[in-house]
């Protein structure tokens, strides 16, 4: 007997996972919602700051087809238009459902307030509160999950492998961190909602959990990944002085609102030198701004810590106080006085466009295996429109939960021989023994440096080949020899080892796809292939071969055009 048996297992309890659990439970399925951290506390949703894109249309007339047009335009020709259309059409439905659950979307004159964000042609980004939308959303979903009949929440359960027989998912195995117990979970359906891979890069805005688990679980189970060469970098992540208690991407809305000046190490404006007008308008696209900062640093014109200056010194203090509100006191606690000196900012890894390849039901090619949220690839193409990450979590989460629940009466594919799988996982993890001292940390740091330097913002054939070779070596030769000695309770080194295994496979998929895409497009910029090649308006699909090697193939994009509908104000 496996330790647990359920209709639907949801791996990851951020926004997508919690929404999936709620949707599956209301469709009558029994659900296990597992997270390696605390349910509803880890992941990316809770760190999201402000805006959620959805054509609600209360503030200004809007229609989802207009949101779709902006999404597809931002995606630079690579969006899976079926998924993008689902995202945009259902986003307002989910926003209203969250509203009925009293998340507290900001309103003015009774209408849901929406603001403009880069890349949108209509103000359609709703929010709860500056810097607090993610926590509010996470709290609302935690409450729904806690109230949902049939949802078993399990915190501190790290899922390390899926169990698959004849192309059909049978469940998963993992480790209960508190007591180190191996756990087998039989399930009719599994939903991967474990987020993206931003932690693979040295500078990131990630939580500790965004290490690519969902991608590794999918590949190892026989599912495919798509668009893995497209990580999104956020151009002005906080760099220095050290700022604690705040998300590093916090500067963006203030810069947009007040006009913060971006300066190089010589205190000169520089975005203009990269073909974009920025001073006084602050609308240079994120990819251009990121590229310009990295190039200034490479030319020796960076700020002392390797980024650029962001200055608000030209703004009068009362205006700063009005715009920043209580945030200015939090900055003061960090020793930051914006009237006296600039801060340093730099691009940071922020989101992953690529992910698990799914159909409209969020189903992978493995029967019973689904994905949701950032873990899904395709909807955002080569570049994600701002504000699309949270609606993606809601919309894809709800669909994955609803469709996965339809399998609840399927007979389990779990076999009695699978009962031993979880135990074997723990044995394998402790196999060689003795790698815990410093080797795991050193390997992760080397991976993060490699990804940042060679697979990040400035990519070349030489750098990508070097990185790919080294990552393969780390994955197949070095990590197995670093397996930690066993600790009975909260075996943190074991967790690191399992995480690193997933991270190396996810990293390899990014490096391989980036090497094979010999053009520049969206978030993928090649120094040696600077132009966009119309012949490469196709997606790359990755899968693991039987011998454990990663294979890449090209596939035609999924087109599903929708004409823009006439704009009407919502009731």
């Amino acid at each position: 007997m496996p330790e647990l048996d359920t209709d639907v297992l949801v791996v990851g309890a951020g926004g997508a996972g919690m929404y999936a659990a709620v949707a599956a439970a209301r469709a009558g399925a029994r659900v296990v919602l597992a997270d390696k951290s605390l349910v509803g506390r880890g992941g990316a949703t809770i760190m999201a700051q402000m805006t959620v894109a959805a054509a609600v249309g209360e503030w200004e007339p809007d229609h989802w087809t207009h949101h779709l047009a902006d999404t597809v335009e931002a995606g630079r020709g690579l969006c899976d238009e079926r998924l993008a259309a689902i995202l945009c059409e259902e986003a307002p439905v989910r926003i209203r459902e969250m509203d009925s659950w009293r998340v507290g979307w900001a309103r003015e004159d009774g209408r849901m307030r929406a603001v403009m964000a880069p890349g949108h042609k209509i103000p359609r980004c709703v929010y709860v509160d500056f810097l607090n939308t993610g926590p509010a959303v996470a709290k609302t979903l935690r409450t729904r999950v806690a109230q949902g009949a049939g949802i078993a929440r399990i915190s501190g359960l790290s899922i390390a492998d899926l169990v698959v027989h004849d192309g059909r998912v049978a469940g998963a195995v993992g480790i209960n961190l508190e007591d180190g117990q191996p756990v087998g979970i039989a399930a009719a359906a599994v939903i991967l909602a474990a987020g993206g891979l931003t932690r693979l890069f040295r500078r990131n805005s990630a939580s500790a959990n965004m290490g690519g688990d969902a991608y590794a679980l999918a590949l190892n189970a026989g599912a495919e990944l798509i668009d893995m060469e497209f990580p999104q970098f956020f151009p002005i992540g906080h760099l220095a002085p050290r700022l604690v208690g705040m998300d590093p991407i916090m500067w963006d809305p203030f810069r947009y609102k007040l006009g913060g000046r971006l300066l190089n190490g010589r205190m000169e404006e520089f975005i203009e030198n990269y073909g974009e007008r920025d001073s006084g308008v602050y609308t240079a696209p994120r990819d251009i701004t990121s590229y310009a900062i990295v190039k200034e640093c490479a030319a020796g014109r960076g700020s002392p810590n390797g980024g650029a200056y962001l200055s608000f010194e030209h703004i009068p203090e009362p205006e700063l106080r009005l715009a920043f509100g209580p945030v200015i006191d939090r900055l003061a606690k960090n020793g930051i006085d914006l009237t006296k000196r600039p801060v340093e900012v730099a691009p940071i890894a922020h989101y992953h466009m690529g992910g698990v390849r799914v159909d409209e039901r969020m189903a992978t090619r493995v029967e019973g295996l689904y994905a949701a949220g950032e873990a899904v690839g395709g909807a955002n193409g080569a570049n994600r429109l701002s504000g699309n990450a949270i609606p993606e979590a809601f919309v894809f989460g709800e669909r994955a939960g609803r469709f996965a629940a339809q399998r609840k009466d399927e007979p389990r594919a779990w076999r009695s021989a699978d009962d031993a799988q979880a135990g074997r996982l723990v044995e394998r993890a402790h196999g060689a023994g003795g790698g815990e001292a410093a080797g795991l940390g050193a390997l992760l740091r080397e991976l993060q440096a490699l990804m940042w330097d060679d697979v990040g913002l400035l990519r070349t054939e030489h750098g990508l080949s070097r990185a790919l070779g080294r990552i393969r070596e780390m994955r197949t030769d070095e990590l197995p020899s670093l397996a930690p000695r066993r600790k009975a309770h909260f075996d943190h080194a074991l967790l690191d080892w399992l995480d690193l295994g997933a991270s190396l496979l996810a990293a390899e998929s990014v490096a391989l796809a980036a090497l094979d895409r010999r053009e520049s497009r969206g978030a993928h910029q090649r120094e040696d292939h600077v132009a966009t090649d119309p012949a490469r308006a196709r997606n790359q699909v990755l899968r693991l071969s039987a011998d454990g090697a990663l294979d890449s193939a090209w596939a035609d994009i999924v087109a599903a055009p929708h004409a823009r509908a006439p704009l009407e104000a919502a009731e």
Partner: protein
Amino acid sequence: MSAGSVTIRVRRGAPDEPSRIETFTVPYSEGMSVLDAVMWVRGHVDSTLAIRYACINANACKECMVRVDGKTGYACTSRLGADGALIEPLGNKALIRDLVTDIVPPKERLDAHLEEG
């Protein structure tokens, strides 16, 4: 920005063994958090040092609560002074190992669901 090193003392152990204080020397930079120092130790010296955290810096996940020089606080927002600090697990929660205590709500524990099954 860097200014030498700083020493942290960490109370370690599990329920079935006597606790001990271990001392680690960590590179110091102005404004660094207690969690920065613990993460440095985990990454460079001893990855078996156990602590709960997810968001690292944003004070969003609320998982990293410990005692710093006897005072309860989040490791991610507690500043580490140049004279270092004594870092201990919460005193009012059951110890699991090192800085990890039992903060998981009872209904979110694996054993709550094993009993049902």
